[in-house]
């Protein structure tokens, strides 16, 4: 009776110890071994973590992957299927972390790409603006030059016009529709004579100066007489007087093409032939200085 409990207790104890030893042994046998494939997943995760730029893109996913890898590295004993399952999940988590990091990396590069494009555009705009500014400056300078030239030309023209006026005044010419009309009185000629009086040519000399100054002007020389004598004789006389003036101008170097001489006889009196004063006024040579030919637009022949 006394030994029975002891025996029972001993039996229990032995069983318990055996069980404990068995569990311990089983534990010892598998504690060092991670499931196959766990090491590969670990190295893959380590590679991702080592890339600090990429790793910083997906910290949450990397933490999840780390947890999955740690679980996959746990020994599973003979439960190879569980180990493979954990390794599979860990591998997926690592791959997800890698893909996520790549996505975020691409997204961050995108802002740089966008910035590069903006920079390029800005650079182009700047160059365009600079160019426009340069062109505007050049145009301003050019227009300034044009204005200056125009002003100079205007000054020239004004001074030329003033000079012309001065010359005309010197000639004592009269501006008419036909041009400037210079009337040479009979001081040039003796009555009935066509040759020029000596010392009476100062007016003609002024005309020569004028014609030399304005080479684009041509002159018409018209001789006129009073009504003393026959018409035919007066016609001839007027022609001869006009020719005398023309000859003088030719001798002074004026081109013959610019000179046209004609006798008008007694047909165009400017005063009364009844008085001596009137007749004197009618005896004259008029030199008409023609206005320079204006730039007349060419009429279309069609």
């Amino acid at each position, binding site marked *: 009776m006394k030994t029975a*409990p*002891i025996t029972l*207790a*001993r039996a*229990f*104890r032995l069983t*318990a*110890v055996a*069980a*404990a030893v068995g*569990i311990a042994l089983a534990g010892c046998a598998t504690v060092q071994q991670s499931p196959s494939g766990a090491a590969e997943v670990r190295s893959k995760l380590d590679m991702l973590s080592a890339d600090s730029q990429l790793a910083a893109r997906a910290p949450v996913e990397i933490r999840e992957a780390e947890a999955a890898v740690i679980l996959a590295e746990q020994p599973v004993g003979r439960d190879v*299927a*569980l180990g493979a*399952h954990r390794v*599979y*999940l860990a591998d*997926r*988590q690592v*791959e*997800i972390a890698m*893909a*996520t990091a*790549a*996505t975020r990396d*691409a*997204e961050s*590069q*995108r802002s740089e*790409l*966008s910035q*590069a*494009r903006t920079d*390029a*555009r800005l*650079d*182009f705009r700047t*160059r*365009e603006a600079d*160019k426009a500014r340069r062109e505007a400056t050049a145009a301003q300078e050019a227009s300034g030059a044009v204005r200056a030239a125009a002003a100079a030309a205007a000054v020239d023209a004004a001074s030329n016009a003033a000079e012309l006026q001065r010359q005309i005044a010197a000639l004592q010419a009269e501006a008419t529709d036909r041009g400037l009309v210079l009337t040479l009185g009979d001081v040039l000629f003796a009555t009935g004579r066509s040759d020029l009086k000596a010392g009476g040519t100062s007016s003609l000399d002024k005309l020569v100066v004028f014609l030399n100054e304005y080479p684009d002007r041509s002159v018409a020389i018209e001789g006129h007489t009073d009504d003393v004598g026959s018409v035919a004789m007066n016609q001839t006389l007027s022609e001869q007087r006009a020719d005398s003036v023309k000859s003088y101008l030719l001798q002074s170097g004026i081109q013959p093409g610019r000179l046209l001489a004609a006798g008008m006889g007694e047909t165009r009196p400017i005063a009364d032939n009844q008085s001596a004063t009137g007749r004197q006024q009618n005896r004259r040579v008029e030199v008409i200085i023609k206005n320079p030919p204006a730039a007349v637009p060419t009429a279309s022949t069609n």
Partner: protein
Amino acid sequence: MPRCFRTRTRSQVYATTALAALLLLVGGCITTPLAPEIALNDARSTIQAAEKDDASHYANAELDEARQKLILADRAVATEDMVLAERLAHESAATAKLAAARTEAKKAAAINTEMSRGADALMEEMQRIGDQQ
């Protein structure tokens, strides 16, 4: 002494037994599968989300693997291997998630390539215009 010895022995026995029972209980809990419906539903919805993101175009291999895992999980449920069913469901969901992640990565890379090409073209065009001017 004998009484004392006996008492100590009994307490050791109880403790050891309790430990063993606990271990068995815990082990049982781990290996006894819960209904894998949650895991299965998770796998299905993750696959659908990946399909919606056009994963069949960008990560078809992964998407296909996720689908196959889900089919195997359903078969395991049919054979009442709930442990396997749950594991396969988890694997399916993880692979579907990977399909989505790779799809996003490829889309992002494609956008970058396009942007880079666009920027290059823009620069070339500007250079050309600049030269013309």
